[in-house]
């Protein structure tokens, strides 16, 4: 579905652990949204002409019983998220969406391992629901710095056949990184697909583990975005010759080994093996995934 601009009424804003969740009446966005896609939001009457802010779609209520809604969950870090955190019901948010390339589900039912860091788990909630609807087994791993920054662990527990939790400080689940239990889980579950979202070093580590295990892996990246619609070229990422376009119209191939792909249009989901990790400062990984 091609993205639309929708002026969305705020249905609810609430706290979720250390995060804020925002539910927007967005029939047209909700209709076509797929896991891994994002909305590009603008809040409030602000004459300073602020740029939009991108957020993964956390949950979708397709139009039907209700008018259709999308929910995002976010961390308050700066001016844009502060403005969103001030919203009250009936306020209006200007949204573009659904934007970007979604996760590709396996063709046939298969075991899937989903790994999310912090609020990065958000799109995996949506993905888990879709994968299970397609008959896939879903195992989840979520990690965060501390317990309060784990995204809705109760709900996460319901989404998959298993949930493994890690925290840096040990305040919940295992102490350590979200990537620590991966090799073991891959072996244990026999997963054929890995899906991940979170900070770049985590995505690099996940891509490496998946490559070593020979399992197909898709990761959703976060680059700074101005437009979100493919026209400003600020959100680029080096992608290898085979990498990228995921069904969306590719930009014309450049005469290069790797090219700078726009993560808003050709991503935010990329094949872990397609990203030119060496250029991003992870040279060993590049060797591995070749």
């Amino acid at each position, binding site marked *: 579905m091609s993205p639309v*601009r929708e002026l969305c009424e705020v249905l609810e804003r609430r706290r979720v652990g250390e995060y804020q969740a925002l539910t927007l009446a967005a029939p047209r966005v909700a209709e076509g949204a797929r896991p891994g896609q994002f909305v590009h939001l603008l809040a409030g009457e602000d004459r300073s002409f602020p740029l939009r802010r991108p957020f993964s779609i956390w949950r979708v209520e397709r139009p039907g019983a209700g008018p259709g809604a999308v929910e995002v969950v976010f961390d308050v870090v700066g001016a844009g998220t502060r403005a969103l955190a001030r919203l009250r019901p009936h306020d209006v948010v200007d949204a*573009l969406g659904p934007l970007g390339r979604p996760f590709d589900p396996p063709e046939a039912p298969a075991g899937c391992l989903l790994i999310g860091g912090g609020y990065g788990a958000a799109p995996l909630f949506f993905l888990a629901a879709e994968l299970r609807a397609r008959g896939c087994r879903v195992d989840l791993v979520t990690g965060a710095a501390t317990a309060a920054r784990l995204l809705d662990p109760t709900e996460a527990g319901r989404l998959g056949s298993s949930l493994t939790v890690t925290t840096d400080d040990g305040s919940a689940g295992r102490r350590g990184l979200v990537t620590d239990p991966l090799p073991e889980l891959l072996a244990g579950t026999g997963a054929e697909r890995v899906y991940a979202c979170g900070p770049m070093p985590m995505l690099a580590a996940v891509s490496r583990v998946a490559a070593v295990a020979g399992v197909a892996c898709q990761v959703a990246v976060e680059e700074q975005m*101005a*437009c979100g619609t*493919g*026209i400003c*070229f600020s959100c680029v990422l080096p992608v290898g010759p085979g990498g990228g376009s995921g069904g969306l119209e590719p930009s014309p191939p450049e005469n290069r080994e790797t090219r700078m792909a726009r993560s808003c249009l050709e991503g935010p989901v990329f094949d872990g093996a397609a990203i030119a990790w060496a250029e991003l400062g992870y040279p060993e990984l590049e060797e591995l995934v070749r």
Partner: protein
Amino acid sequence: MTVDLSVDLCGVRLRTPVLAASGCFGFGREMAGWVDLAALGGIVTKSVSLEPRRGRPTPRMAETPSGMLNAIGLQNPGVEAFCAGDLKFLAGAGATVVASLVGRTPGEFGRLAERLDGEPGVALVEVNLSCPNVEHRGEVFATDPAAAAEVVQAVKRATSTPVLAKLTADVTDLVAVARAVVDAGADGLTLINTLLGMAVDTGRRRPRLAAVTGGLSGPAIRPVAVRCVWQVAQALPGVPIVGTGGVVTGEDAAEFLLVGATAVAVGTGSFINPRAVVEVADGLERYLADQGAGSPAELPALFKAER
């Protein structure tokens, strides 16, 4: 009062005086789902060079008060891929295309213009002079009247398409540069490119752009852009000007047209509102009707400079 939005820009009839600015509308294709490309005044493509360019490392953009900084670094697939892919698409979509060219030497500009001459679908050429001249200590072409004129000459020799010279406001004497490029044959001017700026991530104590400095755009710079158009229109009456810098509403466009621009180009505005080019034109149509003007070309005569 019925309003006819069409304007003549250097002999080319545009459906509206509102174009998409270079670098702010991709190569046009990306926006096909958002707007009817054929209904726009025109699409200035992202600047195209002879060879593909990868551009700068990220972060490439930073938000600033009422504006943004960018250091994209002219990423583009090179003129051959551009012609084979984007240009063909745009021509097929019925868009009015302004091909933006960028080179490192006057010769490169000339070869680009030659390559595009006669390509179907290119209505005008825009020469992006806000880039370093490798033959001259990396000085930006548009800061030196002679260097800018040399580029325009090279381009004019190579093409029969009308040529717009795009200038920067980061100069002591903009009128001198404008006069030099017009004397060298430029059919019109695009004013202005981004202002050179910088922003600091105070928390991490480093530049917010990987390239350290970048171009400032958006409503923040509109007063500078309007002043530039006014100055040049006063000094060089009759030279068509495309006003660029912070246009996000029809009223903003009217500011530029009142002080003497023939058309405007919407840049950063499209990042917030993908339909900005269309909506600015709609807003301008309402404005003209309110003012009892039948066409954009009537506006300069309605402007009262002495209060």
